[in-house]
């Protein structure tokens, strides 16, 4: 079946599977910088959790190509619906780094979207973003704005009702949306084989008469091309696409999880042979685009950017807790007003002496 084939451009050794293919040097270097930045970011956030500077954190190491490649394919007017593991996608599309750090510090500013992009805060309940992404795309189509939505989710989400309801709605109404599944093999501890009896995620699109592609999620070129094609199809009225990006998270589900209980360390090591960053590095070296010095500079720059973000995140004082009373409704009803003012007088008496 076509939907079982894994689409790949970049071979493990850094050669292209199709020699006639032309990839712009600028784009490839940009991708590399983003992969490096996001890997550095992710590792530093795991570190911050260890040091008690942030709360529980959901690491995405290993999935950078899926997220960066797909997000780079978006246009500025598009809508992004990420989960709590999609920070590389969010950063690539323009979410401020400091806000992602704040998010994991349990700060409400971490949910505030940037001014010039429609990026929703991370979706925590699984698959709930899927029908919403379909709806936002439907609105773009209704208003004739040429914007698409992209919804990120994992393999576990494909067992949820909202996944099926969202795909069905999107397909029926031909909404310009891309459903981007990162199949990393596990939903916390439950392996893909227990998640579904389907051989692939991609094949689930057939039931909805929807386009689908199964792509090597660790091949940033293949992910980028696949997503770009899907977005173009959506924009030209051909409806939604389900993309299954086959990838792997090297780390635990979150910093509160211990993967040794459900999978072997060897499995993780095997996947590292397919590492998205090393593959692109090998390619760039073969193309003579990346020498040792440039590579070092890219890493130093990534380090600097992330360190600055972390310093800034740690230095900005926490907001006044009464921020919780804001924006619950467009106007504060009397009950919230009363509770806020009694909270404020309590705080004045006991916390601001």
């Amino acid at each position, binding site marked *: 079946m076509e939907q079982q084939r894994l689409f790949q451009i970049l071979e493990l050794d850094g050669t292209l599977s199709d020699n006639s293919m032309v990839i712009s040097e600028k784009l490839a270097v940009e991708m590399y910088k983003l992969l490096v930045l996001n890997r550095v970011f992710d590792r530093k956030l795991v570190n911050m959790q260890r040091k008690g500077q942030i709360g529980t954190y959901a690491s995405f190491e290993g999935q950078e190509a899926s997220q960066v490649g797909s997000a780079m394919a978006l246009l500025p007017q598009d809508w992004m619906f990420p989960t709590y593991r999609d920070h590389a996608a969010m950063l690539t599309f323009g979410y401020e780094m400091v806000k992602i750090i704040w998010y994991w510090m349990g700060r409400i500013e971490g949910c*505030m979207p940037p001014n010039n992009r429609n990026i929703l805060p991370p979706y925590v309940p699984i698959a*709930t973003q899927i*029908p919403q992404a379909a*709806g936002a795309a439907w609105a*773009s189509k209704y208003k004739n704005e040429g914007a698409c939505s992209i919804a990120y989710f994992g393999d576990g989400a494909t067992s949820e009702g909202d996944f099926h309801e969202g795909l069905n709605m999107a397909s029926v*109404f031909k909404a310009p949306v891309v459903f981007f599944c990162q199949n990393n093999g596990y939903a916390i501890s439950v392996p893909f084989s227990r998640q579904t009896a389907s051989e692939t995620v991609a094949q689930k699109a057939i039931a909805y008469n929807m386009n689908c592609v199964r792509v090597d999620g660790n091949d940033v070129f293949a992910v980028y091309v696949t997503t770009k094609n899907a977005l173009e199809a959506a924009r030209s009225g051909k409806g939604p696409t389900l993309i299954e990006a086959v990838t792997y998270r090297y780390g635990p589900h979150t910093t509160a999880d211990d993967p040794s209980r459900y999978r072997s360390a060897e499995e993780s090591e095997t996947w590292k042979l397919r590492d998205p960053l090393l593959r692109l590095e090998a390619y760039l070296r073969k193309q003579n685009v990346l020498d040792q010095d440039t590579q070092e500079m890219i890493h130093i720059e990534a380090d600097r950017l992330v360190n600055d973000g972390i310093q800034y995140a740690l230095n900005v004082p926490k907001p006044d807790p009464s921020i919780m009373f*804001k*924006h619950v*409704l467009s106007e504060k009803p009397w009950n919230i007003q009363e509770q806020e003012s009694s909270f404020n007088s309590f705080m004045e008496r006991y916390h601001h002496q």
Partner: protein
Amino acid sequence: MQRDLTVVQALNEALDLLLTEDDKILLLGQDIGKNGGVFRVTENLFNKFGDHRVVDTPLSEAGIVGCAIGLALNGLKPIVEIEFFGFIYPALEQILSHLSRLRMRTQGKYEVPLIIRAPYGAGVRAPELHSESIESLFFQSPGVKVVIPSNPYDAKGLLIAASEGHDPVIFLEPMRIYRSMRHPVPQHRYTVPLGKANVIKEGKDISIICWGAMVWNVIKAADQLENTQGISVEIIDLRTLYPFDMDTIKESIRKTQRAVIVHEAPLTGGVGAELAAVIHDRMFGELKSPVKRITGFDVPVPQFSIEDYYLPSSDRIIHEINQMLVSIKR
């Protein structure tokens, strides 16, 4: 110009007006298009506004509400019909986890001005699980408003007011009053403000707070109490449950010094519990007797052959009020 309309007709007129005025408004739901809705609230709107404005959807509550949230995030004003309130559960995660908190999470960058309409309540001999009264679920979800009209005039005015606001609204339409009365309704646009209760009848001995179809049971009971026992009842139709109108409640009870709450949802944890608590909390010294709740029982809404015994009938309201007065005299 005023005509006598049913609640169904008044709602239809409001939706017609909203669709005409604002092309950002679209209706989504099951059977609302060609069929005009199972209760005909959307009758003729499909023909008038077309498939892209009055949208028959798949049978998919979470899909409908989820999509509607996305539509609203991206600048439209969808009005969703859930065919029966008792079927809303698949959409609860969308409502409770997202609809009610997207504004807060994004500190106002996104608002979700989505109205979810649903026929609600018991008393029309509907099949099992079509008669639920689960307003307290939404009453306890900060971030959504809960509105329940009791008559044709309010139905039209409240729905238009809901659409003018920037907040999500759960708009519950008691099935029992869909066609049980015709009242004068102006043809022109008007609003009945959210958060304002309506004193339907003034009185001096007892304040009864109620909403939806129960208002009519209370009116009947009040007539009888007044005519046969000389007890003067003030009736407050709450209209908006969240946020409810504390000022009107306070003003009334300050006068009568007795409060009764009537609702058809179960007693325990119902909206009446909060009302009773807040009245006791603020007006304890002014009350002549504890606040009384007359409600559905703490059982699943029974099959329709006995639903009239589940609902607080006017007889039961009179009976319970008399019991309350007797126990006070002792």
